[in-house]
Protein backbone atom coordinates (compact mmCIF):
# COMPACT_ATOMS: atom_id res chain seq x y z
CA UNK A 1 0.00 0.00 0.00
CA UNK A 2 0.97 3.63 -0.53
CA UNK A 3 4.14 3.05 -2.43
CA UNK A 4 6.33 5.91 -3.44
CA UNK A 5 6.23 6.88 -7.07
CA UNK A 6 9.57 7.46 -8.78
CA UNK A 7 9.39 10.09 -11.46
CA UNK A 8 12.93 11.13 -12.40
CA UNK A 9 12.46 14.80 -13.36
CA UNK A 10 9.20 14.22 -15.13
CA UNK A 11 6.66 16.97 -15.66
CA UNK A 12 2.92 16.57 -15.43
CA UNK A 13 1.54 15.70 -18.88
CA UNK A 14 0.78 18.96 -20.67
CA UNK A 15 -2.76 20.05 -21.44
CA UNK A 16 -4.11 19.20 -24.87
CA UNK A 17 -7.26 21.28 -24.48
CA UNK A 18 -8.53 22.73 -27.75
CA UNK A 19 -8.61 26.19 -26.18
CA UNK A 20 -4.92 26.12 -25.28
CA UNK A 21 -3.43 29.42 -26.50
CA UNK A 22 -6.82 31.05 -27.09
CA UNK A 23 -8.12 34.04 -25.17
CA UNK A 24 -11.08 34.20 -22.80
CA UNK A 25 -13.52 37.08 -22.36
CA UNK A 26 -11.17 38.68 -19.81
CA UNK A 27 -8.41 38.70 -22.42
CA UNK A 28 -6.47 36.04 -20.54
CA UNK A 29 -4.69 33.34 -22.52
CA UNK A 30 -5.49 29.70 -21.70
CA UNK A 31 -2.12 28.30 -20.68
CA UNK A 32 -0.74 24.95 -19.62
CA UNK A 33 0.02 24.69 -15.90
CA UNK A 34 3.70 23.90 -16.58
CA UNK A 35 4.10 27.15 -18.47
CA UNK A 36 2.26 29.17 -15.83
CA UNK A 37 4.49 27.99 -13.02
CA UNK A 38 7.77 26.99 -14.62
CA UNK A 39 8.08 29.37 -17.58
CA UNK A 40 6.21 32.61 -16.85
CA UNK A 41 7.82 35.30 -14.73
CA UNK A 42 6.54 35.39 -11.14
CA UNK A 43 6.11 38.80 -9.50
CA UNK A 44 6.04 39.39 -5.74
CA UNK A 45 2.82 40.79 -4.25
CA UNK A 46 2.00 41.65 -0.64
CA UNK A 47 -1.41 40.11 0.06
CA UNK A 48 -3.66 38.57 2.70
CA UNK A 49 -4.51 34.90 2.38
CA UNK A 50 -8.06 35.78 1.34
CA UNK A 51 -6.70 37.99 -1.43
CA UNK A 52 -4.42 35.16 -2.47
CA UNK A 53 -7.46 32.91 -2.92
CA UNK A 54 -9.00 35.58 -5.12
CA UNK A 55 -5.83 35.91 -7.18
CA UNK A 56 -5.63 32.16 -7.68
CA UNK A 57 -9.26 31.89 -8.76
CA UNK A 58 -8.78 34.73 -11.26
CA UNK A 59 -6.28 32.48 -13.00
CA UNK A 60 -8.18 29.18 -12.77
CA UNK A 61 -10.92 29.45 -15.45
CA UNK A 62 -13.54 28.44 -12.89
CA UNK A 63 -17.09 27.79 -14.12
CA UNK A 64 -19.13 27.86 -10.92
CA UNK A 65 -18.47 28.97 -7.37
CA UNK A 66 -21.09 28.81 -4.62
CA UNK A 67 -20.61 30.77 -1.40
CA UNK A 68 -21.78 30.74 2.18
CA UNK A 69 -20.44 32.93 4.97
CA UNK A 70 -18.43 31.44 7.79
CA UNK A 71 -15.35 32.92 9.41
CA UNK A 72 -12.52 32.78 8.39
CA UNK A 73 -13.43 32.12 4.74
CA UNK A 74 -16.20 34.71 4.33
CA UNK A 75 -13.90 37.36 2.95
CA UNK A 76 -12.42 35.06 0.33
CA UNK A 77 -15.87 33.83 -0.71
CA UNK A 78 -17.08 37.43 -1.08
CA UNK A 79 -13.98 38.42 -3.05
CA UNK A 80 -14.75 35.61 -5.49
CA UNK A 81 -18.19 37.22 -5.87
CA UNK A 82 -16.46 40.44 -6.83
CA UNK A 83 -14.37 38.82 -9.54
CA UNK A 84 -17.48 37.00 -10.77
CA UNK A 85 -19.09 40.43 -11.17
CA UNK A 86 -16.02 41.49 -13.14
CA UNK A 87 -16.51 38.50 -15.45
CA UNK A 88 -13.94 35.94 -14.31
CA UNK A 89 -16.46 33.18 -13.52
CA UNK A 90 -19.58 31.95 -15.32
CA UNK A 91 -21.74 31.38 -12.24
CA UNK A 92 -21.64 32.46 -8.62
CA UNK A 93 -24.30 32.64 -5.94
CA UNK A 94 -24.89 32.31 -2.23
CA UNK A 95 -26.38 28.99 -1.18
CA UNK A 96 -28.57 28.46 1.86
CA UNK A 97 -26.28 26.25 3.96
CA UNK A 98 -23.04 24.39 3.51
CA UNK A 99 -24.98 21.17 2.96
CA UNK A 100 -26.89 22.83 0.12
CA UNK A 101 -23.81 24.59 -1.22
CA UNK A 102 -21.93 21.33 -1.61
CA UNK A 103 -24.98 19.90 -3.41
CA UNK A 104 -25.07 22.92 -5.71
CA UNK A 105 -21.37 22.45 -6.38
CA UNK A 106 -22.05 18.79 -7.17
CA UNK A 107 -24.83 19.73 -9.59
CA UNK A 108 -22.50 22.12 -11.40
CA UNK A 109 -19.75 19.50 -11.55
CA UNK A 110 -22.14 16.77 -12.77
CA UNK A 111 -23.06 19.22 -15.54
CA UNK A 112 -19.44 19.74 -16.56
CA UNK A 113 -18.15 22.89 -14.86
CA UNK A 114 -14.90 23.46 -12.98
CA UNK A 115 -16.17 24.20 -9.47
CA UNK A 116 -14.64 26.00 -6.51
CA UNK A 117 -16.00 26.69 -3.06
CA UNK A 118 -14.70 27.55 0.38
CA UNK A 119 -15.76 26.57 3.88
CA UNK A 120 -14.49 26.17 7.42
CA UNK A 121 -15.08 24.37 10.70
CA UNK A 122 -18.79 23.91 11.38
CA UNK A 123 -19.41 24.48 7.67
CA UNK A 124 -17.17 21.55 6.81
CA UNK A 125 -19.02 19.32 9.23
CA UNK A 126 -22.43 20.57 8.10
CA UNK A 127 -21.44 19.67 4.55
CA UNK A 128 -19.87 16.35 5.46
CA UNK A 129 -22.32 13.93 3.82
CA UNK A 130 -21.49 15.52 0.48
CA UNK A 131 -17.77 14.84 0.47
CA UNK A 132 -17.83 11.06 0.08
CA UNK A 133 -20.68 11.57 -2.39
CA UNK A 134 -18.47 13.89 -4.47
CA UNK A 135 -15.68 11.33 -4.38
CA UNK A 136 -17.91 8.36 -5.20
CA UNK A 137 -19.44 10.28 -8.09
CA UNK A 138 -15.94 11.21 -9.35
CA UNK A 139 -16.53 14.98 -9.18
CA UNK A 140 -13.24 16.93 -9.19
CA UNK A 141 -14.61 19.84 -7.15
CA UNK A 142 -12.17 21.94 -5.16
CA UNK A 143 -13.09 23.12 -1.68
CA UNK A 144 -10.69 25.43 0.10
CA UNK A 145 -10.95 24.69 3.82
CA UNK A 146 -9.73 27.53 6.03
CA UNK A 147 -9.58 25.48 9.21
CA UNK A 148 -11.21 26.66 12.42
CA UNK A 149 -12.52 24.97 15.54
CA UNK A 150 -15.43 22.53 15.39
CA UNK A 151 -16.00 22.15 19.11
CA UNK A 152 -18.67 23.43 21.45
CA UNK A 153 -18.68 26.10 22.77
CA UNK A 154 -18.52 27.68 19.36
CA UNK A 155 -15.09 28.80 18.30
CA UNK A 156 -14.01 30.76 15.27
CA UNK A 157 -10.33 30.30 16.03
CA UNK A 158 -7.78 28.31 14.03
CA UNK A 159 -7.73 24.60 14.76
CA UNK A 160 -7.05 21.76 12.33
CA UNK A 161 -9.33 19.13 13.83
CA UNK A 162 -11.75 19.31 10.90
CA UNK A 163 -9.07 17.95 8.57
CA UNK A 164 -9.15 14.70 10.51
CA UNK A 165 -12.77 14.24 9.47
CA UNK A 166 -11.85 14.69 5.82
CA UNK A 167 -9.16 12.04 5.67
CA UNK A 168 -11.32 9.07 4.65
CA UNK A 169 -13.83 10.87 2.45
CA UNK A 170 -12.05 9.83 -0.75
CA UNK A 171 -10.91 13.40 -1.41
CA UNK A 172 -7.39 14.56 -1.98
CA UNK A 173 -6.41 16.56 1.11
CA UNK A 174 -3.54 19.02 0.83
CA UNK A 175 -2.29 21.28 3.61
CA UNK A 176 -0.80 24.68 2.81
CA UNK A 177 1.77 26.17 5.14
CA UNK A 178 1.90 29.69 3.73
CA UNK A 179 -0.02 32.04 1.47
CA UNK A 180 2.35 31.03 -1.33
CA UNK A 181 1.44 27.37 -0.80
CA UNK A 182 -2.21 28.30 -0.78
CA UNK A 183 -1.92 30.04 -4.14
CA UNK A 184 0.08 27.21 -5.70
CA UNK A 185 -2.05 24.43 -4.23
CA UNK A 186 -5.31 25.96 -5.45
CA UNK A 187 -4.10 26.25 -9.04
CA UNK A 188 -2.21 22.97 -9.12
CA UNK A 189 -4.98 21.22 -7.19
CA UNK A 190 -7.46 21.68 -10.02
CA UNK A 191 -5.08 20.16 -12.52
CA UNK A 192 -4.25 17.12 -10.40
CA UNK A 193 -7.84 16.49 -9.30
CA UNK A 194 -9.13 16.72 -12.87
CA UNK A 195 -6.74 14.19 -14.39
CA UNK A 196 -9.02 11.54 -15.90
CA UNK A 197 -7.31 8.77 -13.93
CA UNK A 198 -7.74 10.76 -10.69
CA UNK A 199 -10.94 12.78 -11.07
CA UNK A 200 -11.89 13.03 -7.41
CA UNK A 201 -12.51 16.14 -5.28
CA UNK A 202 -9.76 18.00 -3.51
CA UNK A 203 -9.72 19.85 -0.21
CA UNK A 204 -6.99 22.48 -0.16
CA UNK A 205 -6.66 23.24 3.55
CA UNK A 206 -4.94 26.09 5.32
CA UNK A 207 -4.95 27.23 8.93
CA UNK A 208 -7.61 29.92 9.37
CA UNK A 209 -6.47 33.43 10.33
CA UNK A 210 -2.79 32.46 10.44
CA UNK A 211 -2.89 32.17 6.66
CA UNK A 212 -6.14 33.84 5.64
CA UNK A 213 -5.87 37.04 7.66
CA UNK A 214 -2.16 37.79 7.67
CA UNK A 215 -0.26 39.53 4.89
CA UNK A 216 2.60 37.83 3.18
CA UNK A 217 4.68 38.18 0.06
CA UNK A 218 3.47 35.85 -2.66
CA UNK A 219 4.92 35.36 -6.13
CA UNK A 220 2.18 35.45 -8.73
CA UNK A 221 2.28 34.55 -12.42
CA UNK A 222 0.94 37.24 -14.79
CA UNK A 223 -2.80 37.87 -14.70
CA UNK A 224 -3.10 37.52 -18.45
CA UNK A 225 -2.51 33.78 -18.12
CA UNK A 226 -5.22 31.39 -16.95
CA UNK A 227 -5.48 27.61 -16.67
CA UNK A 228 -6.82 25.70 -19.65
CA UNK A 229 -10.51 25.02 -18.97
CA UNK A 230 -11.82 21.81 -17.50
CA UNK A 231 -12.75 19.35 -20.23
CA UNK A 232 -15.81 17.47 -18.95
CA UNK A 233 -15.30 14.76 -21.55
CA UNK A 234 -11.88 13.84 -20.12
CA UNK A 235 -13.84 12.07 -17.46
CA UNK A 236 -13.91 8.52 -16.12
CA UNK A 237 -17.72 8.78 -16.07
CA UNK A 238 -20.19 10.29 -18.55
CA UNK A 239 -20.92 13.96 -17.89
CA UNK A 240 -24.61 14.57 -17.21
CA UNK A 241 -25.44 16.86 -20.12
CA UNK A 242 -27.23 14.53 -22.55
CA UNK A 243 -24.42 15.08 -25.04
CA UNK A 244 -22.52 11.89 -24.40
CA UNK A 245 -23.29 8.20 -24.50
CA UNK A 246 -24.75 6.21 -22.94
CA UNK A 247 -27.97 8.15 -22.53
CA UNK A 248 -29.49 5.50 -20.32
CA UNK A 249 -27.24 6.60 -17.53
CA UNK A 250 -27.56 7.15 -13.83
CA UNK A 251 -24.24 8.47 -12.65
CA UNK A 252 -24.55 6.90 -9.21
CA UNK A 253 -26.86 3.93 -9.73
CA UNK A 254 -28.46 1.81 -7.06
CA UNK A 255 -26.61 -1.44 -7.08
CA UNK A 256 -27.53 -2.49 -3.58
CA UNK A 257 -31.25 -1.87 -3.29
CA UNK A 258 -33.96 -4.43 -2.76
CA UNK A 259 -34.13 -6.79 -5.68
CA UNK A 260 -30.83 -5.86 -7.23
CA UNK A 261 -27.70 -6.52 -5.26
CA UNK A 262 -24.03 -6.40 -6.17
CA UNK A 263 -21.83 -5.96 -3.17
CA UNK A 264 -18.79 -6.66 -5.33
CA UNK A 265 -19.62 -3.52 -7.29
CA UNK A 266 -19.83 -1.49 -4.12
CA UNK A 267 -16.58 -2.83 -2.76
CA UNK A 268 -14.79 -2.31 -6.07
CA UNK A 269 -16.25 1.18 -6.34
CA UNK A 270 -14.79 2.13 -2.98
CA UNK A 271 -11.44 0.61 -3.90
CA UNK A 272 -11.49 2.54 -7.15
CA UNK A 273 -11.89 5.85 -5.28
CA UNK A 274 -8.92 5.01 -3.06
CA UNK A 275 -7.01 3.96 -6.18
CA UNK A 276 -7.82 7.30 -7.81
CA UNK A 277 -6.33 9.09 -4.81
CA UNK A 278 -3.21 6.93 -5.15
CA UNK A 279 -2.93 7.79 -8.84
CA UNK A 280 -2.73 11.47 -7.96
CA UNK A 281 0.85 10.94 -6.68
CA UNK A 282 2.21 10.70 -10.18
CA UNK A 283 0.74 14.07 -11.13
CA UNK A 284 1.33 15.78 -7.79
CA UNK A 285 5.01 14.97 -7.34
CA UNK A 286 6.22 16.93 -10.38
CA UNK A 287 3.86 19.85 -9.71
CA UNK A 288 4.52 20.22 -5.99
CA UNK A 289 8.11 19.00 -6.20
CA UNK A 290 7.31 16.02 -4.03
CA UNK A 291 4.66 15.27 -1.44
CA UNK A 292 7.05 16.39 1.32
CA UNK A 293 9.85 18.93 1.72
CA UNK A 294 12.87 17.93 3.79
CA UNK A 295 15.48 20.03 5.55
CA UNK A 296 18.38 18.16 7.18
CA UNK A 297 16.08 15.20 7.52
CA UNK A 298 18.96 12.83 8.22
CA UNK A 299 19.35 14.24 11.74
CA UNK A 300 18.55 12.21 14.83
CA UNK A 301 16.06 14.81 16.01
CA UNK A 302 13.29 15.40 13.53
CA UNK A 303 10.18 17.52 13.42
CA UNK A 304 7.45 16.33 11.05
CA UNK A 305 4.58 18.75 10.54
CA UNK A 306 2.06 20.24 8.15
CA UNK A 307 0.42 23.66 7.79
CA UNK A 308 1.56 26.59 9.93
CA UNK A 309 3.00 24.18 12.47
CA UNK A 310 5.83 23.93 9.94
CA UNK A 311 6.51 27.67 10.15
CA UNK A 312 6.57 27.56 13.93
CA UNK A 313 8.93 24.61 13.75
CA UNK A 314 11.34 26.47 11.48
CA UNK A 315 11.73 29.15 14.14
CA UNK A 316 12.04 26.55 16.89
CA UNK A 317 14.82 24.85 14.95
CA UNK A 318 16.63 28.19 14.64
CA UNK A 319 16.36 28.74 18.41
CA UNK A 320 17.65 25.23 19.14
CA UNK A 321 20.47 25.67 16.67
CA UNK A 322 21.65 28.68 18.74
CA UNK A 323 22.04 26.30 21.66
CA UNK A 324 23.87 23.79 19.53
CA UNK A 325 20.94 21.36 19.19
CA UNK A 326 20.51 20.26 15.59
CA UNK A 327 17.03 19.31 14.46
CA UNK A 328 15.82 18.31 11.00
CA UNK A 329 12.43 19.20 9.51
CA UNK A 330 9.95 17.41 7.26
CA UNK A 331 7.01 19.31 5.85
CA UNK A 332 4.09 17.20 4.67
CA UNK A 333 2.15 18.83 1.82
CA UNK A 334 -0.34 16.13 0.98
CA UNK A 335 -2.19 14.35 3.78
CA UNK A 336 -4.17 12.35 1.20
CA UNK A 337 -2.54 10.63 -0.48
CA UNK A 338 -0.28 10.20 2.55
CA UNK A 339 3.45 10.21 1.74
CA UNK A 340 3.95 6.84 3.40
CA UNK A 341 7.14 5.74 1.70
CA UNK A 342 8.61 9.21 1.85
CA UNK A 343 8.06 9.39 5.61
CA UNK A 344 9.47 5.91 6.14
CA UNK A 345 12.57 6.91 4.22
CA UNK A 346 13.21 10.25 5.90
CA UNK A 347 12.56 8.98 9.41
CA UNK A 348 14.92 6.02 9.05
CA UNK A 349 17.72 7.57 11.09
CA UNK A 350 15.63 9.64 13.46
CA UNK A 351 15.81 8.78 17.16
CA UNK A 352 13.12 11.25 18.21
CA UNK A 353 10.31 12.46 16.01
CA UNK A 354 8.24 15.46 17.12
CA UNK A 355 4.87 16.22 15.57
CA UNK A 356 3.57 19.67 16.55
CA UNK A 357 -0.11 20.18 15.71
CA UNK A 358 -2.94 22.67 16.05
CA UNK A 359 -5.57 20.22 17.24
CA UNK A 360 -6.48 18.30 20.37
CA UNK A 361 -6.10 14.75 19.04
CA UNK A 362 -2.76 14.83 17.29
CA UNK A 363 -4.02 13.13 14.17
CA UNK A 364 -0.89 13.70 12.14
CA UNK A 365 1.15 11.94 14.82
CA UNK A 366 -1.27 9.02 14.63
CA UNK A 367 -0.87 8.85 10.87
CA UNK A 368 2.90 8.76 11.21
CA UNK A 369 2.90 6.26 14.06
CA UNK A 370 0.77 3.93 11.99
CA UNK A 371 3.31 3.61 9.19
CA UNK A 372 6.82 3.66 10.62
CA UNK A 373 8.74 1.00 12.50
CA UNK A 374 9.67 1.64 16.15
CA UNK A 375 6.95 4.18 16.49
CA UNK A 376 7.71 4.90 20.12
CA UNK A 377 10.14 7.35 18.50
CA UNK A 378 7.14 9.57 17.76
CA UNK A 379 6.42 12.22 20.33
CA UNK A 380 2.75 13.20 19.94
CA UNK A 381 3.05 16.94 20.23
CA UNK A 382 3.34 19.54 21.27
CA UNK A 383 -0.20 20.32 20.34
CA UNK A 384 -2.43 23.25 21.05
CA UNK A 385 -6.04 23.82 20.13
CA UNK A 386 -9.06 26.07 20.37
CA UNK A 387 -7.26 28.96 18.72
CA UNK A 388 -4.18 28.99 20.91
CA UNK A 389 -0.98 29.98 19.25
CA UNK A 390 1.97 27.62 19.33
CA UNK A 391 5.00 29.71 20.26
CA UNK A 392 8.20 28.28 18.87
CA UNK A 393 9.45 28.23 22.44
CA UNK A 394 6.88 25.57 23.26
CA UNK A 395 8.31 23.31 20.60
CA UNK A 396 11.81 24.06 21.88
CA UNK A 397 10.77 23.22 25.43
CA UNK A 398 9.14 19.94 24.48
CA UNK A 399 12.15 18.82 22.57
CA UNK A 400 14.42 19.66 25.49
CA UNK A 401 12.19 17.86 27.97
CA UNK A 402 12.23 14.83 25.75
CA UNK A 403 16.02 14.95 25.66
CA UNK A 404 16.15 15.23 29.45
CA UNK A 405 17.56 18.77 29.35
CA UNK A 406 16.92 21.64 31.78
CA UNK A 407 14.21 24.08 30.71
CA UNK A 408 12.37 27.01 32.18
CA UNK A 409 8.74 25.98 31.77
CA UNK A 410 6.59 28.29 29.68
CA UNK A 411 3.39 29.48 31.28
CA UNK A 412 0.23 30.76 29.68
Amino acid at each position, binding site marked *: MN*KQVELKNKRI*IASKHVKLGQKNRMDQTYTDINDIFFKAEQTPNFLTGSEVIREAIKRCSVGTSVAYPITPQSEAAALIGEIYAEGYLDEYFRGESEFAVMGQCAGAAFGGHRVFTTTAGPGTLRAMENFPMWAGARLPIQVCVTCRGVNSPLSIQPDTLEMYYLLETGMLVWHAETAQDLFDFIMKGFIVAEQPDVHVPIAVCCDGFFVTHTKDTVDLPPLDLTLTPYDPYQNP*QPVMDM*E*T*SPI*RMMRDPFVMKSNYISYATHA*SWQQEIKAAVERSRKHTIPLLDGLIDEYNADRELLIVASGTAVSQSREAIRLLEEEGIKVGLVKIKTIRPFPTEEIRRVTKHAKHIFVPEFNVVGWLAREIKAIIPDNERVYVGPHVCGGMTMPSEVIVEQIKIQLGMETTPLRM
Partner: protein
Amino acid sequence: MSQYQVLPGPEAFLPPAAASMGNVLPDPGEAHIEGRIVPEDEAYEVFARKVLGAKVPTIFPGPLVLWKWNDHVAEKAKAIRELANEAPMRIIPMADYRPKYPKIEAAVEINPNHPNLTIWHNKIDVCIFIGVHCHQANLSLKIIRGGTNCYTMAMCAMAGHEDACLSFRDADLGKIRKLIDAVKKLKSEGVESQAIPFKQFKLSRAGLVDQSAN
Protein backbone atom coordinates in the same frame (compact mmCIF):
# COMPACT_ATOMS: atom_id res chain seq x y z
CA MET B 1 9.87 -3.60 -2.98
CA SER B 2 8.63 -6.19 -5.47
CA GLN B 3 6.23 -5.07 -8.13
CA TYR B 4 2.63 -6.21 -7.81
CA GLN B 5 1.82 -8.34 -10.82
CA VAL B 6 -1.55 -8.03 -12.46
CA LEU B 7 -2.23 -11.61 -13.50
CA PRO B 8 -5.39 -13.49 -14.37
CA GLY B 9 -7.27 -14.68 -11.29
CA PRO B 10 -9.16 -16.00 -9.55
CA GLU B 11 -7.09 -13.84 -7.23
CA ALA B 12 -9.05 -13.26 -4.06
CA PHE B 13 -12.48 -12.75 -2.55
CA LEU B 14 -11.73 -9.04 -2.85
CA PRO B 15 -8.44 -8.37 -4.66
CA PRO B 16 -6.75 -5.00 -4.13
CA ALA B 17 -6.82 -2.25 -6.72
CA ALA B 18 -3.47 -2.39 -8.47
CA ALA B 19 -2.98 1.36 -7.96
CA SER B 20 -3.09 0.80 -4.23
CA MET B 21 -0.30 -1.75 -4.61
CA GLY B 22 1.91 0.93 -6.09
CA ASN B 23 1.34 0.21 -9.79
CA VAL B 24 1.61 3.37 -11.86
CA LEU B 25 -0.06 4.06 -15.17
CA PRO B 26 2.01 4.32 -18.36
CA ASP B 27 2.93 7.68 -19.89
CA PRO B 28 2.05 8.59 -23.49
CA GLY B 29 3.87 6.23 -25.83
CA GLU B 30 3.92 3.50 -23.22
CA ALA B 31 1.67 0.63 -22.17
CA HIS B 32 1.80 -1.80 -19.29
CA ILE B 33 1.95 -5.56 -19.30
CA GLU B 34 0.99 -7.20 -16.02
CA GLY B 35 2.11 -4.08 -14.18
CA ARG B 36 5.39 -3.60 -16.02
CA ILE B 37 5.67 -0.38 -18.05
CA VAL B 38 6.75 -1.12 -21.64
CA PRO B 39 7.04 0.80 -24.90
CA GLU B 40 3.64 0.71 -26.53
CA ASP B 41 4.84 -1.27 -29.55
CA GLU B 42 5.84 -4.18 -27.36
CA ALA B 43 2.28 -4.46 -26.08
CA TYR B 44 0.72 -4.85 -29.53
CA GLU B 45 2.56 -8.07 -30.12
CA VAL B 46 1.67 -9.44 -26.72
CA PHE B 47 -1.94 -8.51 -27.40
CA ALA B 48 -1.90 -10.43 -30.68
CA ARG B 49 -0.26 -13.49 -29.08
CA LYS B 50 -2.81 -13.54 -26.29
CA VAL B 51 -5.71 -13.24 -28.70
CA LEU B 52 -4.47 -15.87 -31.14
CA GLY B 53 -3.56 -18.26 -28.33
CA ALA B 54 -6.97 -18.04 -26.68
CA LYS B 55 -9.93 -20.38 -26.99
CA VAL B 56 -12.58 -17.71 -26.54
CA PRO B 57 -10.99 -14.32 -27.25
CA THR B 58 -13.57 -11.59 -26.86
CA ILE B 59 -13.95 -7.87 -27.47
CA PHE B 60 -16.11 -5.93 -25.03
CA PRO B 61 -17.04 -2.70 -26.79
CA GLY B 62 -18.50 -0.06 -24.47
CA PRO B 63 -20.95 2.82 -24.91
CA LEU B 64 -18.28 5.19 -26.21
CA VAL B 65 -17.88 3.07 -29.36
CA LEU B 66 -21.29 1.44 -29.62
CA TRP B 67 -23.23 4.69 -29.82
CA LYS B 68 -22.72 7.15 -32.67
CA TRP B 69 -22.63 10.13 -30.34
CA ASN B 70 -19.96 11.99 -32.33
CA ASP B 71 -18.51 11.89 -35.82
CA HIS B 72 -15.44 9.76 -35.15
CA VAL B 73 -17.04 6.81 -33.42
CA ALA B 74 -18.38 5.06 -36.48
CA GLU B 75 -14.85 4.53 -37.79
CA LYS B 76 -13.74 3.04 -34.50
CA ALA B 77 -16.72 0.69 -34.52
CA LYS B 78 -15.81 -0.38 -38.02
CA ALA B 79 -12.23 -1.11 -36.99
CA ILE B 80 -13.47 -3.11 -34.01
CA ARG B 81 -15.59 -5.25 -36.29
CA GLU B 82 -12.61 -5.72 -38.57
CA LEU B 83 -10.48 -6.84 -35.62
CA ALA B 84 -13.16 -9.31 -34.60
CA ASN B 85 -13.28 -10.77 -38.11
CA GLU B 86 -9.53 -10.85 -38.54
CA ALA B 87 -8.61 -12.66 -35.29
CA PRO B 88 -11.40 -13.99 -35.00
CA MET B 89 -12.81 -12.66 -31.71
CA ARG B 90 -16.29 -12.60 -30.31
CA ILE B 91 -17.99 -9.28 -29.70
CA ILE B 92 -20.07 -8.93 -26.56
CA PRO B 93 -21.30 -5.39 -25.90
CA MET B 94 -21.48 -3.35 -22.71
CA ALA B 95 -24.32 -1.16 -23.96
CA ASP B 96 -24.50 0.90 -20.80
CA TYR B 97 -23.75 0.55 -17.09
CA ARG B 98 -27.14 0.24 -15.47
CA PRO B 99 -27.69 -2.52 -12.97
CA LYS B 100 -29.94 -4.34 -15.40
CA TYR B 101 -33.04 -5.78 -13.86
CA PRO B 102 -33.99 -8.57 -13.37
CA LYS B 103 -30.87 -10.10 -14.95
CA ILE B 104 -28.48 -9.88 -17.86
CA GLU B 105 -28.30 -12.32 -20.74
CA ALA B 106 -24.76 -13.49 -20.09
CA ALA B 107 -24.43 -15.02 -23.55
CA VAL B 108 -24.86 -11.73 -25.35
CA GLU B 109 -24.01 -8.87 -23.00
CA ILE B 110 -21.67 -7.81 -20.24
CA ASN B 111 -22.43 -5.48 -17.34
CA PRO B 112 -19.93 -3.69 -15.07
CA ASN B 113 -21.78 -4.72 -11.94
CA HIS B 114 -21.13 -8.44 -12.44
CA PRO B 115 -18.92 -8.89 -15.50
CA ASN B 116 -17.76 -12.23 -14.10
CA LEU B 117 -21.11 -13.77 -15.11
CA THR B 118 -20.39 -13.14 -18.79
CA ILE B 119 -16.82 -14.44 -18.48
CA TRP B 120 -17.97 -17.63 -16.77
CA HIS B 121 -20.95 -18.26 -19.01
CA ASN B 122 -18.95 -17.98 -22.23
CA LYS B 123 -15.71 -19.40 -20.80
CA ILE B 124 -13.86 -16.32 -22.02
CA ASP B 125 -10.12 -16.69 -21.47
CA VAL B 126 -8.87 -13.47 -23.10
CA CYS B 127 -10.70 -10.20 -23.48
CA ILE B 128 -10.18 -6.57 -24.38
CA PHE B 129 -12.28 -3.61 -23.28
CA ILE B 130 -12.65 -0.77 -25.79
CA GLY B 131 -14.81 2.31 -25.30
CA VAL B 132 -15.86 1.71 -21.71
CA HIS B 133 -15.67 4.71 -19.34
CA CYS B 134 -12.62 4.34 -17.08
CA HIS B 135 -14.55 4.11 -13.84
CA GLN B 136 -16.76 1.30 -15.04
CA ALA B 137 -13.86 -0.41 -16.79
CA ASN B 138 -11.90 -0.45 -13.55
CA LEU B 139 -14.82 -1.95 -11.64
CA SER B 140 -15.19 -4.64 -14.28
CA LEU B 141 -11.50 -5.45 -14.53
CA LYS B 142 -11.17 -5.87 -10.81
CA ILE B 143 -14.23 -8.06 -10.43
CA ILE B 144 -13.02 -10.22 -13.33
CA ARG B 145 -9.55 -10.56 -11.80
CA GLY B 146 -11.09 -11.42 -8.46
CA GLY B 147 -13.21 -14.29 -9.64
CA THR B 148 -12.17 -15.57 -13.05
CA ASN B 149 -9.07 -16.76 -14.87
CA CYS B 150 -9.58 -14.43 -17.82
CA TYR B 151 -6.60 -12.46 -19.16
CA THR B 152 -7.89 -8.88 -19.36
CA MET B 153 -6.70 -6.12 -21.68
CA ALA B 154 -7.84 -2.54 -22.18
CA MET B 155 -7.62 -0.09 -25.06
CA CYS B 156 -8.26 3.04 -23.02
CA ALA B 157 -8.88 6.46 -24.53
CA MET B 158 -7.46 8.16 -21.46
CA ALA B 159 -4.69 7.22 -19.06
CA GLY B 160 -5.00 3.42 -19.10
CA HIS B 161 -5.93 0.80 -16.50
CA GLU B 162 -3.63 -0.74 -13.90
CA ASP B 163 -6.32 -3.29 -13.11
CA ALA B 164 -6.04 -4.88 -16.53
CA CYS B 165 -3.33 -7.45 -17.22
CA LEU B 166 -2.36 -5.34 -20.22
CA SER B 167 -3.35 -1.79 -20.99
CA PHE B 168 -2.87 0.77 -23.71
CA ARG B 169 -3.61 4.47 -23.24
CA ASP B 170 -4.76 7.38 -25.46
CA ALA B 171 -6.71 5.01 -27.72
CA ASP B 172 -7.75 6.33 -31.10
CA LEU B 173 -8.64 4.85 -34.45
CA GLY B 174 -4.97 4.41 -35.35
CA LYS B 175 -4.30 2.31 -32.28
CA ILE B 176 -7.29 0.06 -32.88
CA ARG B 177 -5.96 -0.43 -36.40
CA LYS B 178 -2.56 -1.31 -34.96
CA LEU B 179 -4.25 -4.13 -33.04
CA ILE B 180 -5.49 -5.50 -36.35
CA ASP B 181 -2.05 -5.13 -37.91
CA ALA B 182 -0.42 -6.94 -35.00
CA VAL B 183 -2.79 -9.87 -35.41
CA LYS B 184 -2.21 -9.95 -39.17
CA LYS B 185 1.54 -9.86 -38.70
CA LEU B 186 1.63 -12.81 -36.30
CA LYS B 187 -0.66 -14.76 -38.58
CA SER B 188 1.63 -14.08 -41.51
CA GLU B 189 4.44 -15.50 -39.40
CA GLY B 190 2.47 -18.71 -39.10
CA VAL B 191 0.80 -18.26 -35.71
CA GLU B 192 -2.66 -19.76 -35.91
CA SER B 193 -5.75 -18.79 -33.98
CA GLN B 194 -6.63 -21.33 -31.30
CA ALA B 195 -10.15 -19.98 -31.01
CA ILE B 196 -12.94 -22.51 -30.78
CA PRO B 197 -14.96 -22.08 -33.99
CA PHE B 198 -18.00 -19.90 -33.43
CA LYS B 199 -20.51 -17.79 -35.26
CA GLN B 200 -20.91 -14.16 -34.12
CA PHE B 201 -24.39 -13.91 -32.67
CA LYS B 202 -26.85 -11.49 -34.19
CA LEU B 203 -29.60 -9.62 -32.41
CA SER B 204 -32.52 -7.84 -33.91
CA ARG B 205 -35.32 -5.83 -32.35
CA ALA B 206 -37.09 -9.13 -31.82
CA GLY B 207 -34.18 -10.86 -30.12
CA LEU B 208 -31.61 -13.47 -31.15
CA VAL B 209 -31.54 -14.05 -34.90
CA ASP B 210 -31.47 -17.71 -35.82
CA GLN B 211 -28.47 -18.11 -38.13
CA SER B 212 -28.66 -21.86 -38.52
CA ALA B 213 -30.33 -21.48 -41.92
CA ASN B 214 -27.45 -19.59 -43.50
